[in-house]
């Protein structure tokens, strides 16, 4: 059986009926990776125990045990999520040789739901990048055109799903790192509300932004994974006790009577005209489905990226202080301890990571803190207020995920500012802590375009409702790269 286009929902039904075994499914995915990964570099390593775990699921099913919602479903994890005993590098040389000492909470929850963790996927180094080119392990390639970037930083996860290796993978999203690669690879990506999913065992980039979420082929599948991983975890103090949990079966495929806001600032300068017209057509489809479309203004949008690129490097420079060459990973000895730190970090970190650490160290340093960091926190409040105001008038916001389709490998690699501009429509959700979903909505020159849907904090249900309605009426998500 060709398992490359199965959704989680379809595979779950086949596994339950006995038409497909978990072992055959896992083997099918491992074969697809073995055949296709060399060209795309989506996976850094596959699990040696996946087939045993799948066999155990099959045995438990045969014994009539009740199994979790993801029983036998192969799922990939981004290389910044810990699994006990797995190598885990965050795409960096500085974690060369590191082995996870414990399981992250998402690992525990996916395993409790019966998922088969199939391997770890490539990413921009410490999630700093929008193209997966800053990975120490080499860039990943876009399956729609191997000369193009897959987006980033969760590029390996998006490529693995788009290429048909696996039905789903987890990514982490600090400024768009789930939604943007999902958009550029033609798959679904969800950044949950800040606080919805525990980050325990996720290597931190910027702690006031980071969220873990799924990359899948359908909106329903994203809801299935969210249901398995969400909720309060005592080990992440920012995770929240949920009052409403995700119930995928209850997703209503109707937007009748909903009001969707289209922020005019999200179609401003720098936006590719062809991408804009594809996104407008997607919005028109939602209007035909019964939604009321209303233009809105989010006046501080043009300041979001600047605020983000102050706060995020500031938090990153602090979070990456732990890489001292002593407790884990790469080590380079100097004549004294400060020299050892400098050498280890100078050699172990790549250029973009060093750039951001320096930027963060600068904006937090004496004399600059007020002008940059404090100012950016104030602007973050203004961005949050823009969203609060918008959600008084509309149920959700619809806009592009990315200002362009995938660009050529190498094209923006030496121009950090041009790379940062790729995040212009995604950073706002992280600044405002709201959830965001990217759904495939068409093509420009054979490359996928994503529609981004944003909703109130903890209202993922509305995202699923809009996204599932759209997918019910369109076939973009059923197309596969050849």
């Amino acid at each position, binding site marked *: 059986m060709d398992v490359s286009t199965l959704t989680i929902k379809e595979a779950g039904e086949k596994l339950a009926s006995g038409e497909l075994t978990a072992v055959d499914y896992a083997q099918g995915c491992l074969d697809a990776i073995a055949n296709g990964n060399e060209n795309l570099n989506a996976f850094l390593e596959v699990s040696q125990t996946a087939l045993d775990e799948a066999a155990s699921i099959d045995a438990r099913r045969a014994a009539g045990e009740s199994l979790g919602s993801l029983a036998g479903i192969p799922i990939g994890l981004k290389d910044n999520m810990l699994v*006990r*005993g797995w190598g885990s590098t965050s795409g960096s040389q500085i974690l060369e040789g*590191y*082995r996870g*000492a*414990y399981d992250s909470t998402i690992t525990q929850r996916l395993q409790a739901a019966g998922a088969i963790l199939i391997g770890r996927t490539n990413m921009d180094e410490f999630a700093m990048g929008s193209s997966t080119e800053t990975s120490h392990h080499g860039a990943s390639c876009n399956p729609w055109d191997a000369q193009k970037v897959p987006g980033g930083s969760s590029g390996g996860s998006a490529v693995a799903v788009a290429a048909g290796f696996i039905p789903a993978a987890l990514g982490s999203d600090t400024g768009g790192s789930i939604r943007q690669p999902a958009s550029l690879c033609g798959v679904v990506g969800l950044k949950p509300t*800040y*606080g919805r999913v525990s980050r325990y065992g996720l290597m931190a980039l910027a702690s*006031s932004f980071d969220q873990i979420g799924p990359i899948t082929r359908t909106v329903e599948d994203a809801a299935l994974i969210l249901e398995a991983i969400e909720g309060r975890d*005592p080990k992440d*103090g*920012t995770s*929240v006790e949920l009052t409403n949990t995700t119930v995928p079966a209850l997703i209503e495929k109707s937007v009748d009577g909903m009001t969707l806001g289209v922020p005019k600032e999200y179609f401003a300068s720098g936006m590719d005209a062809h991408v804009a017209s594809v996104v407008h057509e997607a919005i028109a489809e939602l209007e035909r489905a019964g939604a009321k479309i209303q233009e809105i203004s989010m006046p*501080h949008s*043009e*300041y979001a*990226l*600047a*605020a983000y*690129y102050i706060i995020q490097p500031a938090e990153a420079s602090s979070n990456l202080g732990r890489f001292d*060459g*002593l*407790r*884990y*990973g790469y*080590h380079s000895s100097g004549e*004294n*301890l*400060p020299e*050892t*730190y*400098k*050498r280890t*970090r*100078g*050699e172990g*970190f790549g250029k973009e990571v*060093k*750039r951001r*650490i*320096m*930027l963060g*160290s*600068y904006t937090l*340093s004496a004399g600059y803190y007020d*002008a*940059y960091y*404090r*100012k*950016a*926190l*104030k*602007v*973050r*409040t*203004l961005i949050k207020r823009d969203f609060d105001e918008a959600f008084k008038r509309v149920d959700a916001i619809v806009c592009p995920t990315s200002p362009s389709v995938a660009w050529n490998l190498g094209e923006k690699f030496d121009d*950090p*500012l041009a790379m*940062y501009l790729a995040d212009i429509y995604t950073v706002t959700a992280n600044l405002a*802590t709201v959830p965001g979903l990217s759904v495939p909505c068409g093509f420009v020159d054979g490359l996928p375009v994503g529609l981004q849907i944003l909703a109130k904090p903890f209202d993922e249900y509305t995202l699923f409702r809009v996204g599932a309605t759209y997918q019910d009426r369109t076939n973009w998500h059923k197309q596969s790269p050849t």
Partner: protein
Amino acid sequence: MKFSREEVLKIAKLARLHLEEEDISKYQEDLGSILTYIEKLQELNTDDVPEFQHAAGSANVFREDIVEGCDPDVRRRALENFTAREGNLLKVQAVFENRTE
């Protein structure tokens, strides 16, 4: 806006980063262009705007002050990741210099 060589070296020292000689001028340029872009925020008057404080709301999270210990296997794996050790202790170079006057 461009960073001086001295500024880049000072920041690198603060961040404990050794930079290769040939990379320094590129960092001067890159950091300068990023900073020029983020200067944009100065256009906004934010005098009466409070700073954004807590991404997950401002409620405190409490728990009982009880030592839960550590799974011996997790402990073993954490120790194995150390670059240098003596028994179960992390071995590091001297933090303080030994000076005799």
